């Protein structure tokens, strides 16, 4: 894995004393990442905003849920100021898939955020991103929708939506020199997101180097291992002792778990405060952190292709299996080809009786 940010010439920053976070959840999302964020306790968002974490700049968080503002133009004011270049520095957080406006002929929009003050028409999410991303000190994609397109970008979708890096270009660099920072998860695991945010903020304060990211721009320390490597049931896997249905505490690979090839730390870490999770507590891993989510993992409740092979080989285990897994891991670490910003819809959507 390459460490993109480390190879980037991050501008030597003397550090900011104060920074604004402009959070937009008007992508195609369920707002589950914002909700997840409020579950984090290590640290909590209040801790960050109230200045209880040493080594961070003062943070002004602009997020619909947590903003004490009255809203409307008053709420939108910092976004408008940033778009005019009058508010610096800021971190842009995007939640939700980015629709493809290019496939719409004529008027209309898939999603918007407030109204354009001049025309009174809905202001599209895309126009906000176009204005804000080039001015942002850092850009963070929160959740699998924003990182890779996620559920709304599955095959047959009518909106042609995609992840933020697909939209901005994978070579995009924010003012800090950082690429888009991707925190996948459907939704984000609360602490995974807060840790990443804290590292980016420390970097902004000049108290830390840029966060190490992998080739899909994910924080390495969070997504460097597989689900399987942290799963409570891995001992059963090793003994080739597999659950035949969901009544069993054994390894779930034959009933749909994709843990062996998915990059995610949830089984190890639990969902919040160490409670819950996925395979460790009886949920199959459906690969929700992955670029190829969801299509490559469906139907979720069936044994993953290659599962039989890899479980047969579990006894003479070792290098072979690692290589096989490596291949699958490569596949699921790629996004489907229909996620792009071109003028054509290629997701396979076909409004059959209208054409």
């Amino acid at each position, binding site marked *: 894995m390459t460490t993109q940010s480390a190879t980037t010439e991050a501008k030597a920053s003397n550090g900011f004393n104060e920074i604004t976070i402009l959070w937009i959840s008007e992508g195609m999302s369920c707002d*589950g990442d914002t909700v*997840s964020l409020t579950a984090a306790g290590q640290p909590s968002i209040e801790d960050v905003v109230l200045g209880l974490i040493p080594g961070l700049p003062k943070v002004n968080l602009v997020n619909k849920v947590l903003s004490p503002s009255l809203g*409307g133009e008053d709420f939108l004011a910092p976004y408008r100021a940033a778009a005019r270049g009058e508010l610096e520095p800021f971190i842009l957080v995007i939640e939700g898939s980015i629709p493809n406006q290019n496939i719409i002929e004529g008027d209309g929009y898939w999603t918007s955020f407030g109204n354009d003050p001049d025309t009174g028409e809905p202001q599209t999410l895309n126009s906000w991103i176009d204005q804000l991303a080039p001015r942002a000190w850092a850009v963070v994609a929160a959740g699998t929708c924003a990182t890779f397109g996620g559920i709304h970008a599955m095959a047959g979708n009518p909106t042609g939506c995609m992840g933020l890096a697909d939209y901005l270009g994978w070579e995009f660099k924010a003012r800090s020199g950082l690429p888009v920072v991707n925190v996948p998860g459907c939704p984000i695991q609360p602490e995974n997101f807060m840790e990443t945010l804290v590292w980016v903020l420390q970097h902004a304060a000049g108290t830390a180097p840029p966060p190490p990211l992998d080739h899909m721009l994910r924080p390495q320390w969070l997504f460097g291992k597989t689900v399987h490597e942290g799963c409570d049931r891995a001992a059963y896997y090793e003994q080739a002792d597999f659950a035949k249905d969901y009544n069993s505490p054994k390894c779930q690979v034959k009933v749909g778990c994709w843990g062996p090839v998915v990059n995610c730390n949830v089984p190890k870490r639990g969902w919040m*405060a160490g409670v819950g999770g996925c395979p460790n507590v009886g949920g199959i891993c459906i690969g929700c952190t992955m670029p190829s989510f969801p299509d490559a993992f469906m139907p979720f409740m069936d044994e993953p292709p290659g599962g039989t092979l890899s479980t047969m080989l579990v006894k003479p285990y070792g290098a072979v299996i690692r290589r096989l897994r490596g291949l699958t891991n490569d596949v699921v670490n790629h996004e489907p080809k229909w996620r792009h910003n071109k003028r054509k819809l290629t997701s396979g959507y076909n409004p059959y009786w209208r054409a």
Partner: protein
Amino acid sequence: MTTTESRAAGRKPAQIVDMSWDPITRIIGNLGIYTKIDFANREVMECHSTSSLFRGYSVFMKGKDPRDAGFITSRICGICGDNHTTCSNYAQQMAYGVKPPKLAEHITNLGEAAEYIFDHTIFQDNLVFVDFCEAMVKATNPGVLARAERTHAPRGDVHGYRTVADIMKAFNPFEGEVYKEALKVSRITREMFCLMEGRHVHPSTMYPGGVGTMPQPNTFTDYLSRLMRVIDFIKKAVAMNDDVFDFFYEALPGYEEVGRRRVLLGCWGAFQNPDVVDYRYATMNEWGRAMYVTPGIIVDGELVTNNLIDINLGLRIMLGSSFYEDWVNEEPFVTHDPLGNPVDMRHPWNQTTVPVPQKRDFEGNYSWVMSPRWYNPQSGEHLALDTGGGPLARLWSTALSGLVDTPYVKAADGTVRITLPKGETLPETTLEWRIPKWSNTLERDRARPYFIAYAAAMALQFLEEAMGMLKSGDTKVYENFEVPDESIGCGFHEAVRGVLSHHLVIRDKKIANYHPYPPTPWNASPRDMYGTPGPYEDAVQGQPIFEENGPDDFKGVDIMRTVRSFDPCLPCGVHMYMGKGKTLTTVHSPTYGANHG
């Protein structure tokens, strides 16, 4: 319409100002409220509700494996994703003909109970109540705050605050004691949720046919110990809310008209009774009525039906102001239900979604939300039911039916009695919710803490039963099934903020059609093809304005309270866009009030 006769008399020449709130945060993103306010007569003349987000679940689910439906539909909503998963599993279980083991039903109910407690708490205390907190009341009705400072809080022995203003202070955002405590409670209750369903908000352990949650003694004791930690907080919350809402009626005579609509409530029922439910369509009336929250449709205070089959057959999805092409001339997917009753072309089983992005036009199409309605065969009306934000309809329906009779919750004679056990500081307490006089903003809000208590009380029963089963060695939580080649199913459930249904058609073992109807389309719908406004529009339109500020520094708090009382998903943000507050027209319309009652 909320205008009263007395306001119709002595009207002044109207002074109309365009005011809008956009975005209002809700789960599928982007809700806007656009109004015309008559500042001379202090009332809202017109209201349009619009949503500006389309994602297309019912489109991209076609052709997928039906077993994936719960995993996919969870992602519709980032706050009540589990309610979707559960509802989807209910619909699938009907389609597959599978009945999960009893223990799985208890675990599902416990997950849902934790969800209700979590979501209603964070919404009421951290979001809704900001509209009633000291800082807000000071900015909008300083006279009322002064009075609150002089008003003794009647239930101070329970919650510990001396005056009503002290309660309001405790709800000030970020600083108030209750505000901060509520955030902590929302974390503890989410841990309870994760013990049952693995992850919040998109659960990991929920399957059609049951759950994967490992039933071990600590699964339940971990839940119970957390529940007992929040039980006194719940008792106090009910008392504080009652004190403040009672005070509002008293301090602002006429406040009952704010957000008042005709009583048109729908509840689809929650908490399956594991001894009765078998998920067959033919017996849906029996197991529906055995649910621990009783389904029902209430019109003008009367129970029209609590039969889920009638409820199902009356569903109609209308266009009229939405950005879609009509499907009414296509082949229907389902012509008759499994009992042979005809199914309407506008029923969700027959809907096809074809999005047509277009310009927003308040005279024409202005929203991505469609207009769900319920056809009342008795009156021939297509009713724009609302959910009362969830709890109001749930309690009303349960109280009217009088079917729930459990150790902790009993419904009879228009009341629901809820008993919570002794906690750390407060004794065992029985709360009583009574059917209110109005379906309005304050009653929607008041019902919410009562329903938190309801969910906590039911959780105690589910825990006792689940632990009993576990100790007797009955630990099966999942039942296998085959996906049939062709089948249909429907699921009825309550998302936190109200009615939730999923309708599924399977052909060749694949999804041929799938339509989820969550509460927010019911509440936030635009005008339908008959011109009937949706509930937000109807509740806001015609409501009086009590805020003391004029057009220049108007905050719109009464309107925000109304919209928020319905719990528009991810709530908090009724964000005000003042439209520069310019005066549009000054209309002299002496007859305006005459036909406006």
